[in-house]
Every structure is written in structure tokens, then in C-alpha cells.
């Protein structure tokens, strides 16, 4: 049932065609954006693509591989280098595949993108982590906030996953590097970790951060951790599932429910390219519909029965034909 798979050459029929399509989409976004800008209204880029959040009949869990995810269509969302604010850059990820589900008052968003290298350690000055984030308007109203961190009257809520936090942050040099030697740490209380002491979320261990922003440089982590995230790398691609309960956990975070129509944007960072902060690949906002359409049932058993049955009938028929043929 996969309809699109952004970076799969065999499935989509070649790199050139894929790029043409991607360029076409980017160009359309640009033209629509420009016209909207001139006409003076906020572009609801939403028309270009819609991610439907299907209703699941069982808890999908946090595993991004298989299960209901394989049975719903992915939406290929093109990405470009962030080019609005310093520092620019980050065009390492051409597109992401986005899917969504909801189950029992909980929204699940799955983001998948090509990345052949796993960068899950930041234990070194030049090491940066693979990461992904989804962004929603702070309120599910009609006005779409500015893509980059929103603006003063229309904020955004961002859920970010990072590979290094999920892998666990080593706490000492020897823990990270078996050849590393530290004679003695005379004091190891929290006062010696100012970031930890003041509650910096980067020094916490959860794989997901929940952030709110109302413009550049205002990104702030919420003290609560209402968002879950988990990522799996299959050798060529990352797939990450985010989830959060529908009710808004606090200011600047959208209230969701079945029937909600809002917007979603995606950002992804490739640690191998030293992507971090504004150096990232970003999408435009696309629509997100939390509907009542159920996840298509798992047809695998029927397909197997049909195949086996067909084979059986074929064999019988062959035998019969063979027998009755003079």
C-alpha cells in the first residue's frame, strides 16, 4: 500500500525523474508562495499536500517499523536548505516521508528519510547528531505561523527527536572511550554541571523535546515532557515516531482531537554534515487532517491465502490437464 517512497530509486523509476518531480513541487511551492505574498494573504501551503492521520484500532506503539505504518500511504514532503536566518545551510536531506495515525486520543507521526550514516554521538567538539522535528501552529486556527519559529502573535510547537539522546549521553571520558583515562574526579555533584543544575533540557535523557517558539531565537523547551519519540535506522534510512496525547499540555501547544485540521512542517538534520540549529533541511507547512478513516486492514493473510490457493488450484488444474491430455 506504500504509494510514495521518496528516495527509493527502484520504486519511483530513477533519480532524474525523482528530481524533476521534486523540483516541480518546490517550484510550485515557490510560485504559490509568491502569489500569496503579493496578494497579501498567508499561504496555506496545505493545499499542496495533506497528511491524513488514520484511526488505528490497536496501539501502534513507538516502533516505526512495520505494523500499521506499512498499511497507510506516506506523503513525500520535499525539503530545502533553511535560508531565512543565520546560520543558513543544511540541504543534505532532499525529502521526507510523513505518515500519521491516532489511537485512543493520542497522535502518532512517523517521519522517514534517507541517511546512510548513523550519527548518534555528540561526545566530541566536532560531532553532531542526526535529528528530526515536526512543527505545528501553536493554535489550530486559520492563520499559519511563519515557518521559521513562528512570530510574536502566532507561535509554533516543535517536537524534536535526536539520535544522541536516544543512544544515551556518556557521562565520563572513560565511559565514551575505553582508552580514555581520568585519574580522579574530586567532586561530581550537580553544581559542577551548570546546565544540569539549572534544568537545561539538553542535559536530560529523554529522546524527545517539546519546544515552543514565537520567532527566531525564542525557542524554549517546556519544563514538562509530554512528547515521546523513538527512532530506528535500517542501514540506509532513519524512521522516527513521535507521539503526544491530544489535549494541549500547556500554552503554545495545540489542542488536538479527531476532526482537527491543522498544519505540520518537518525539519531534519544530518549530523554527518555538521547540521545543527538553522543548518537543517526544512519543509513547508503541509495539511494534517486527524480524521476518522480507519487504517486499512492488514490484508497480508488474505494475500497469502489467495496466493497459496491460486497455486493449489493451478497445480490441480495442471495435473488434471496433464492427466486428460491424450
Amino acid at each position: 500500500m506504500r504509494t510514495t517512497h521518496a528516495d527509493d530509486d527502484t520504486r519511483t523509476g530513477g533519480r532524474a525523474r525523482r528530481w524533476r518531480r521534486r523540483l516541480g513541487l518546490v517550484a510550485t511551492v515557490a510560485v504559490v508562495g509568491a502569489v500569496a505574498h503579493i496578494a497579501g494573504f498567508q499561504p496555506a501551503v496545505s493545499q499542496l499536500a495533506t497528511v491524513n492521520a488514520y484511526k488505528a484500532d490497536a496501539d501502534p506503539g513507538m516502533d516505526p517499523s512495520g505494523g500499521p505504518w506499512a498499511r497507510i500511504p506516506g506523503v513525500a514532503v520535499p525539503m530545502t536548505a533553511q535560508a531565512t536566518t543565520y546560520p543558513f545551510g543544511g540541504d543534505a536531506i532532499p525529502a521526507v516521508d510523513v505518515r500519521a495515525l491516532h489511537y485512543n486520543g493520542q497522535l502518532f507521526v512517523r517521519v522517514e528519510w534517507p541517511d546512510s550514516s548513523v550519527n548518534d554521538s555528540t561526545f566530541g567538539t566536532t560531532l553532531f547528531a542526526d535529528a528530526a522535528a515536526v512543527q505545528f501552529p501553536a493554535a489550530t486556527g486559520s492563520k499559519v505561523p511563519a515557518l521559521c519559529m513562528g512570530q510574536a502573535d502566532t507561535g509554533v510547537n516543535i517536537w524534536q527527536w535526536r539520535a544522541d539522546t536516544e543512544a544515551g549521553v556518556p557521562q565520563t571520558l572513560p565511559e565514551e572511550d575505553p582508552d580514555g583515562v581520568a585519574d580522579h574526579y574530586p567532586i561530581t555533584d550537580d553544581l559542577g554541571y551548570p546546565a544540569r543544575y539549572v534544568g537545561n533540557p539538553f542535559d536530560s535523557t529523554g529522546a524527545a523535546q517539546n519546544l515552543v517558539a514565537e520567532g527566531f531565537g525564542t525557542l524554549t523547551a517546556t519544563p514538562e515532557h509530554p512528547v515521546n519519540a523513538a527512532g530506528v535506522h535500517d542501514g540506509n534510512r532513519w524512521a522516527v515516531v513521535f507521539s503526544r496525547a491530544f489535549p494541549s499540555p500547556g500554552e503554545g501547544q495545540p489542542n488536538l482531537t479527531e476532526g482537527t485540521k491543522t498544519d505540520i512542517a518537518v525539519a531534519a538534520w544530518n549530523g554527518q554534515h555538521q547540521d545543527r540549529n538553522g543548518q537543517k533541511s526544512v519543509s513547508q507547512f503541509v495539511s494534517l487532517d486527524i480524521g476518522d478513516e480507519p487504517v486499512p486492514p492488514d490484508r497480508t493473510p488474505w494475500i497469502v491465502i489467495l496466493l497459496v490457493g491460486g497455486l493449489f488450484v493451478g497445480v490441480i488444474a495442471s495435473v488434471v490437464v496433464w492427466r486428460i491430455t491424450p
Partner: protein
Amino acid sequence: MAKVYNWQLGREMEYPYAGGDRERQFAAVFNINRCIACQTCTMACKSTWTHYPGQELMFWNNVETKPYGGYPRSWDAKLLEMQETLDPGGQNWAGTGQADVRSPYGRFDGKTIFETANGTSERVTGYLPDDDEWKAPNNGEDHGTKMGPDGAKLPVHQGWFFYLQRICNHCSYPACLAACPRNAIYKRKEDGIVLIDQERCRGYRKCVAACPYKKSMYRPTTRTSEKCIACYPRIEGQDPISDGVPMETRCMASCIGKIRMQGLVQVEADATWTHDPRNPIYYMVHVEKVALPLYPQFGTQPNIYYIPPRWAPREYLRQMFGPGVDAAIEKYANPSRELLALLQLFRATREVIFAFDVIPGPVAQTLNVGGRSRTIYDDTVVGYDAKGREVARVKVVEPVVTRPGSINSI
């Protein structure tokens, strides 16, 4: 980009932010001629602030051997080369100094690290050193250039090296602050100290790449960047033993070679220094011009001022400290009565000295130095703290004390 005034360059320059409120600026004078590279300053800092897991390679204070050493390795040579590539043939000083506080060294006509970044994806030209480059605070210790057959003689030694003492410059236009996309770095108006807000920092290391002096460092256990905090509780007079007046930082107060003096100077809104010749730092930087900023051409208006080493090649020193080098060395080699007296105040007290007086004394000695006759006076220099109380009194001629033989036992 806003236009701000950089007096060390004698001109306006581009900076991402317009100047904010300023009252006082943390500043210090380091006399390179006296340093013995004992690293007592380095250890005073390390044992106070950076002995926790994840800070193993972190030395907010380090002393390195020039010309070959550097922490991180070749930090200055690398940036000088980048600047030359981005501003080919342009990194020059021109014009004559107006000999006032607005342009004491003439005018720098080249581009600063903010200006060479124009049109790039970054706000500041810089680079991110890897962990290997941070591994030693004084690698290549005591490695000098090749000695000539005649040995070393002043004015310039043939085989030479010198020690460069380095901490964060608490720059008036910090590159670290300019590069931070999080607005997590701030400069305090009351003392000009530059701090990273450990709650807002998200470990992007833009400051590490941007700081030309490489004094913002990454800590992998908290995944944030940390930097020298100028021992701000001491500067605020919070230490109980300082009786509420500003006290010098740990690295300054522990200096064995008595090379360091730290102060707080009054500054104007445009970051020039308010006229205050009784302030020892102001006196050395603006009246005598014996102490010079480190690589002022980078454009951050750094606030550690160095008395250049007498014996090193002038061309090398001019690249490092700007065009004021020759005059500064002349002042140091043939000091005025006031300067000679003031040099005795280094490390005479741990309180920050806000004002000094010189009380004239009798002739102590007449010398012949380099064919010139010099008279040394046994003047007395007195230092005063923030409350105007006397905290140090030193004479130019060190008193000689002869111990009786009876107690001369080791």
C-alpha cells in the same frame, strides 16, 4: 548588521547588534616579559571551575609558547590565514593614530571577522577545532626558533620564543555572542563580563567556531558550551574575605610571576573608555600605551592587554598586537617614573585596584641602559579599592632584609 565604533581599530565596523548599555568593562594587563609559564594560573582556574567530567580538555586559562604553540593547535595562524584568504592583501593598518582614546593605534583598513563573513552562511568567520587540537594547554612548550651563532642579544633575539597567557577577553564586541543563534550569550553592563546562559544553550557550538581566541569550549557531558566566567562572584565582591569590594580573578590573584593586573574601567555608550588616568589599567592602556590588545584586527575589541616581549621580532609582534608595538616596547624599556612605580603594584593585593597614586621619593640609582642615562627614583605607589580605601603600598626599591645567621637554617 549595525554600525558600532571599535576604538582599537580607530573606525566604525559592522556588528550584528547595536551597542547596548555599558557601565564598566572587565580588563587586565598581562606583562609577557615577566611570565615563567609555571601554569599556576591555569591550575588555579582548573581547580576552581573545570575539574568535572566532560571538562577534561577544557582550560579557560592557558599559557602557550609562541610562535609554535597554541591551544587549540595553531588557532591564531589558522584564523589569520582564513582572514588573508577572504581579504587578500587587505589586512593592513593605515593612517596615523590620533593619540586619543578613539584611535590610539591608527586605523585598521582590513576586514574584521564580522566583515569577512558578509555574504556567507555565517555571521562570523571562524572554524571548529576538533578534540585532538585541544589536547594540550602548552604543546611545544619552550620550543623556540633557531638560535644564531652569536647567541641572543637585545633588542631582538635571533633564537626566540615567549609565553602567551590567554583567557577569554570579555570582548566589547564578542564574536561568541554575535554567532549564537539562540541569544544564549550575554554581556553584562555592570562589568562587561560575557556569559553563556546554561539554561538556553543548546550546544550548537557556533560560539566555539566564532570566538577568534577559541575561549568558548564544548562540554560533551552536558552537551552545552562553557567559557571563562571571569570569576564573576569575586568581581561582584561576593567573596566574604573581600569585604564587598571587587576582588581579582583566581588566575590573576595566583600569578607567581606577578605579571597580571586586573581592573574594571568606566566605559561610554560607544565602548570607548571614560577618561580616568588614576585607574591603573586606563593609565597603562591609554596614557602610556604600554599594553596592547591581542589581535585587535579580528575586530572583537578584546580586553586583555599585553606588554609585548622586548626580545621577539617586531614584525611578528606587530601582527599580534597591532602597530603600537614599537612605542609600547620603548615605554617599557625606558619607563616613566609613574609607570615604573605602577609596575610594582602588580600582585601587591588581591582587591581590584580602582585608583593609584605615586608619591615621589629620592633618587635611588643612576644607570646607563643601552647608552642612555637613566635615573631610578625610590617612589612609593599606593593602590585604592572600589571604596577608595588603601589596599597596597609598595616602594620601587625593594627593601633588603638581612636575616641574622642564627636563624639562617633550612
